[in-house]
């Protein structure tokens, strides 16, 4: 009797141990992979903290200094690019949301003369996402050139807003489908105007959705290159264009390059990571239902 129960206990312990070992191996494997995958970015952060002489050799352990950051932040050349980028993301994101949220609301809850209008509007906006910027580069270049918009920061903003409204609508709409229709109808009976419905009923419910789609737009705008490279001059270009200037410098100024790259990367990383969860929800829901 005791022998049997002991054997049983041992078997159970074995199973538990095996599970434990399996989990440990899995954890180590996953983290090894994740760290290796992230390594180029990690090493970029590290190299930014090196001096130019240290940066020549690929080493992970070294004595960090802020010398390089000091150098690039006192150098004025990066500033205008940084300012332009900040302007682009703030204005484009806000305007896209300002136009996108009411539009998404009307598409989901609005009443139109034809009841099919809602779904055809939604389809129209989603198909616009599919039009790549390449499709408009040529006429926009001619237009910007002849109107002198290349020298205006907001010229590019107009295009960014146009390209990101559909994305905002796509994501916000998928969040809005969670809101029960009865809630909107009830608020209508209570005498809410459409604007009030958006401000006081819908927005509080989809705060996270609005926030995450705004962040997604901000990240896209921050990283956008093709339009910024084609439609700007030195004084209006964004950071992505600034980074492309480093392409000729093979192996020189690695530390400076890494420090600049870190400054370009950190805001987008921070924005992206902070909204990761809502991003997954918005993208997958928008994707599968859209």
């Amino acid at each position, binding site marked *: 009797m005791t022998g049997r129960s002991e054997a049983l206990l041992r078997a159970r312990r074995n199973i538990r141990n095996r599970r434990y070992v399996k989990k440990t191996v899995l*954890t180590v494997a996953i*983290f090894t*992979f*994740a*760290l290796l*995958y992230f390594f*180029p*970015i990690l*090493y*970029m952060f590290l190299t930014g903290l090196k001096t130019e002489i240290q940066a020549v*050799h*690929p080493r992970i352990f070294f004595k960090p200094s802020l010398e390089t950051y000091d150098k690039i932040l006192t150098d004025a050349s990066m500033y205008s690019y940084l300012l332009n980028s900040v302007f682009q993301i703030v204005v484009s994101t806000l305007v896209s949301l300002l*136009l996108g949220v*009411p*539009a998404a*609301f009307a598409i989901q809850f*609005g009443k*139109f003369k034809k009841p099919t209008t809602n779904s055809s*509007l939604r389809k*129209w906006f989603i198909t*616009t996402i599919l*039009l*790549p*910027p*390449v*499709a408009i*580069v*040529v006429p*926009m*270049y001619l*237009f910007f050139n002849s109107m002198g918009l290349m020298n205006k920061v907001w010229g590019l903003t*107009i295009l960014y*807003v*146009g390209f990101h*409204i559909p994305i905002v*609508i796509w994501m916000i709409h998928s969040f809005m489908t969670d809101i029960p229709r009865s809630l909107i109808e009830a608020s209508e009976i209570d005498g809410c105007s*459409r604007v009030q419905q958006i401000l006081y009923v819908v927005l509080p419910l989809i705060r996270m959705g609005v926030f995450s789609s705004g962040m997604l737009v901000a990240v896209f705008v921050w*990283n956008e*290159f093709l339009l910024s*490279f084609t439609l700007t001059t030195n004084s209006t270009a964004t950071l*992505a264009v600034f*980074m*492309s200037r*480093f*392409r000729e410098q093979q*192996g020189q100024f*690695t530390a400076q*390059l890494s420090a600049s*790259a870190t400054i*370009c*990367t950190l805001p*987008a*990383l921070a924005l992206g*990571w902070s909204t*990761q969860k809502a991003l*997954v929800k918005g*993208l*997958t829901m928008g*994707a*599968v239902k859209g």
Partner: protein
Amino acid sequence: MLLPEAPKELKPRARRRYTDKYFVIPAIIWVAVTTQIPFLVTIVLSLLRWNLVRPDQGATFNWFNNYAYFFWDNARSSPEFWNIVLQTLLMTAYSLAACSVFGFLVALMLDHRIPLINVARTLVLGPFFVMSTTTGVIWKVTILNMTFGWYARIATALGLPIREFISESPVMLNAFLFTWQWMPFFVLIILGGLQSVSSEVLESAELDGCNWFNLTFRIKLPMIVNHIGVAIMLGLIFLSKEYGLILVTTQGGPGKSSYTLAYYIRDQLFSSKQVGRAATISVIMVAVMLVLINFLYRKIQSRIELYD
């Protein structure tokens, strides 16, 4: 005085017109003016013969001669255009295939419940938020550099020959870097799909003695194929505007061996100053993309209907 007047109460209903359209119209106008109308202009431009270097010639209507130029005339002397089409298709196919396969596998891996899994997910998601020009510069300088990079160092330590990928296999290199940057996006969407697979299905499959392979490829995979399809569709759009990465890593070279259509458009516009021809390539590119996307979209829709 305190009683509400009768007509006033009726008024809102009588006035009730379809005012909701005013919430959408600004967005529609803005989007149409910045995307669709310019695209129509691109189509018109593609029918013109317009060389900016020769303003005296002006822009003349040219019918479909620009298309003929790329498809036949130019192909006769040098297959430049068709080579670039091939390179674009190859790069797109390599990248999207790698993104889908590895994205699925990595998503499976990250779908486990282990401590700090969110940290691992966050790390893998990282490259998605890096701008493409930074990706190119960082990889080129700190990793692929033949004397100072990590790759050279590891290859020397292992006694392997050091190869210069930038000139030897530029298309593969760009596809690789694109995959590094966009696979996280695939992981994000596929992981969302995996987590939406109901645990009931998985549990009953396990009870029936389903092994890992069958569980993964016969049950989970079919259930998330649509997620992969959507990721591919969006990946296609993002890849089509990928210009910065190629500019920074290989500059389209050596020669024109890593040109893509997007790169070719700029080349025609800025180096050759041929407005009509640049527009022609845009139109061709968009047409090809719309055909591909339409195909994918139909597949996805038919699967959705199948399961509903």
